[in-house]
């Protein structure tokens, strides 16, 4: 009932519900014919602008221009908990001049003849006198210039809001961990008057919907992000298009979450005791509980590794992911705290059973605490670990560990 009523809302707004659109004016195409046409809706008079240009031409400046801007930004967000809508109108006038002493810019959010005159005063530019009544007016220096940029129309925010609700609910029905949609639209209306008298008006309009959903699949948690243009809400039946887009989004997410694409999918990695010890030493924090961020070589010498006792473990035996038995090269700790491994012996675990992973496959382990998973060794247990080509003697109670959200690079599954 709820969904159908929302669909009715979308269908009932074939005209894009311009009545409820706030702050995003529906631009009317303005033919470039006269300066007066270009000044439509701008709170500056043509006579005063003409006077300003003559003043700029009389001033000892190398270049100068006046810009008037009306920028409208809409931001709407919809997720499972917090809806939100904000809109911003930025109106202002800017005068910029280049002189032999440098570049000077003055701006004000007040747009009228008086404010523009005051800005010129701040630049020490004297306004030329007004034309005295009864005398012959000088020819206007203003001349229109065709539009440099295009124009467009945005869907009404009411339509977008209903569409976002439909989208998020439809994605949510596919049981993602989270779903969120964000609409961001900008309408930028600019008038530029140059020192040579050219007057140009341009309007840029753009909007996009960013959808994010997190899904659980074979490779663990997978976040999918898609971007849609405003056309999603502009068809004859926006609700159908939105629901189709949501279905395609879910299908894409499912496909990505199930297919193990080694280069992109996060995987869980289990390291046996020896490899775990090497990795922990490479991290430079051989207490097993945390990682550090550094880009220097680990210190050689005797190192003690300790992990929490068995009863505090929360790791379970790995059933999907990568189990590493040995490394082809010493682990390399990167500057961001992550660790890169090149495996020698490893298995890819999946529903189809374990398959060998080719030697030379690279694993990227993100920063984050490893989870102990295997039975503890009888302490003290001594390993000789080759770290960065430095022999290290390690007394350890370390078990095998799991590290989640790792990345496989250059994998070849046998």
């Amino acid at each position, binding site marked *: 009932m709820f969904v159908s009523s929302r669909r009715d809302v979308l269908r009932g707004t074939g005209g894009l519900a311009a009545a409820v659109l706030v702050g995003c004016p529906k631009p009317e195409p303005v033919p470039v014919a006269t300066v007066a046409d270009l000044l439509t809706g701008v709170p500056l008079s043509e006579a005063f602008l003409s006077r300003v240009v003559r003043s700029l031409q009389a001033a000892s400046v190398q270049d100068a221009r006046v810009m008037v801007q009306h920028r409208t930004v809409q931001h709407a967000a919809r997720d499972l908990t917090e809806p939100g809508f904000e809109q911003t109108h930025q109106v202002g006038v800017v005068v910029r001049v280049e002189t032999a002493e440098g570049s000077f810019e003055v701006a*004000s959010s*007040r747009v*009228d003849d008086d404010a523009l005159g005051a800005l010129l005063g701040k630049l020490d530019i004297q306004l030329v006198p007004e034309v005295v009544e009864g005398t012959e007016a000088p020819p206007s220096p203003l001349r229109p210039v065709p539009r440099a940029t295009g124009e467009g129309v945005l869907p009404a925010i009411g339509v977008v809001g209903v569409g976002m*609700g439909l989208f998020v609910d439809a994605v949510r029905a596919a049981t993602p961990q989270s779903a969120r949609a964000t609409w961001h639209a900008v309408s930028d209306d600019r008038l530029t008057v140059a020192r040579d008298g050219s007057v140009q008006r341009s309007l840029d309009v753009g909007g996009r919907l960013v959808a994010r959903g997190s899904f659980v699949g074979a490779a663990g948690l997978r976040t999918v992000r898609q971007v849609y243009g405003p056309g999603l809400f502009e068809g004859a039946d926006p609700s159908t298009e939105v629901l189709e887009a949501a279905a395609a989004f879910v299908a894409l997410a499912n496909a990505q979450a199930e297919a193990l694409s080694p280069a992109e999918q996060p995987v869980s990695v289990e390291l046996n005791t020896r490899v775990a010890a090497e990795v922990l030493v490479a991290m430079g924090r051989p207490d097993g509980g945390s*990682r550090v961020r550094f880009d220097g070589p680990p210190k050689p010498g005797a190192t003690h590794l300790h992990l929490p006792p068995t009863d505090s473990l929360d790791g379970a035996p790995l059933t999907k992911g990568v189990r590493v038995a040995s490394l082809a090269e010493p682990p390399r700790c990167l500057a961001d*705290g992550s660790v890169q491994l090149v495996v020698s012996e490893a298995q890819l675990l999946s529903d189809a059973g374990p398959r060998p992973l080719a030697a030379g496959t690279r694993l990227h382990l993100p*920063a984050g*605490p490893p989870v102990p998973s295997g039975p503890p060794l009888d302490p003290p247990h001594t390993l000789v670990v080759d770290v960065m080509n430095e022999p290290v003697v390690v007394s350890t109670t370390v078990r095998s560990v799991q590290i989640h959200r790792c990345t496989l690079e250059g994998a070849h599954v046998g």
Partner: protein
Amino acid sequence: MSASPAPAISGAPKLAKRAGEVAALVRELGFSAASVRMVRTRTVLAAAQADALPEVHRHTVRQLDATLTWSGRTTRLVTTNLQPEALAAQLQGTLQHLQQGPPELFAPANSSSWRAPPPGPFDALDRVDPALSPADPGVVRGLALALAKPTGATVSVKAVAQAEAVARTDGAQVAGHHTRIDLSMASPHLTLTRSSRRLAQLPVAGRLVDLYQGLAGVQAAPPVALGPAPERLLVHPEAASRLVTALVGLPMRTGRLAERLSVLADPWVAGGLGAQPFDARGQATRPVPLIEGGLQRRRHTARHHGDLRVALGGKRLARLVGESDRGLVVRGWRRVEVHPATGAMHLEGYGWRVVDGTRAAPVPRMVVSGRLPELFAKLVGVGADPWAFGGARAPTLVFEPVEVTA
């Protein structure tokens, strides 16, 4: 419960009156509740380089930031278009949108009642903020040029004078004003920044040039071998402020810190860059303890107002250096990387070697790795010289023993 009117709008009476008028208009139009914030910002920005013409920008912006509620639905309107007719049209359009728009778009209304700021913070701010006018553009430009030419650095000087007033439909009204000046001198190898409430509080140009050239000289000194013995690390207040800022942003329970460390987010610091008695909705601000006696109380977020204030010790850096037989003074950090979740850090600094209580030789590069909470577990001394040119007012911090590499 009806709120009593705010006593202190004297900081920006005209703006407070305008905000009150808009709040009344909002009520007339049919909104059920609103908080209206009017801000007037005057900015002067000068940028200069030794071999280029300077740029000067002067911007004046008046802005309305309104949180508007109708029938349990809330939205936000921000606009600089304050012409009476245009503003009324925007508010009417927003109301229409609240009434007719889909419910999916709107946040629920915030029903918290108004907390009046006590007189204390207002008094404190008034003492340091007499009626201030924006900085003179010629002075700002002159300062940028005076710093850029002898140092070769890219210099920007930004002076902001801001007045703000908040009026709510429950009758509450507050207003205030403040100024701020931010200075940056940057080259590929060295960046020096200074911020204060007033131009006169900054060091004069000559001292800044001397300091910049002196620090550039430290960085250009020949490398010094360090380690393997742990060092006593004396961190200058400017460098300590960066560490404290990173530390309070870490998640809770990242580790036990030294008991002598206490940090507040304090919006009441007299002359503080972040000093403000009320927030964007007119609610009173309060000092909030972040770390007390080495225990993390809460994580510092954007919700906390004010400056970071570290509880002080009794000695300044010079005296702490004089009492050190051997150690390293960290004058600045070239690189501070702290993982926001784990606290893992990589710090790359520069400073001097201390031998027998004096600065013996420049050390152009010293690297400290590990976890930031563990570094603060080794805090053995807190100075009495809080940094005055930034939003974190940390004094000299002394850590020992610390493994430092070159």
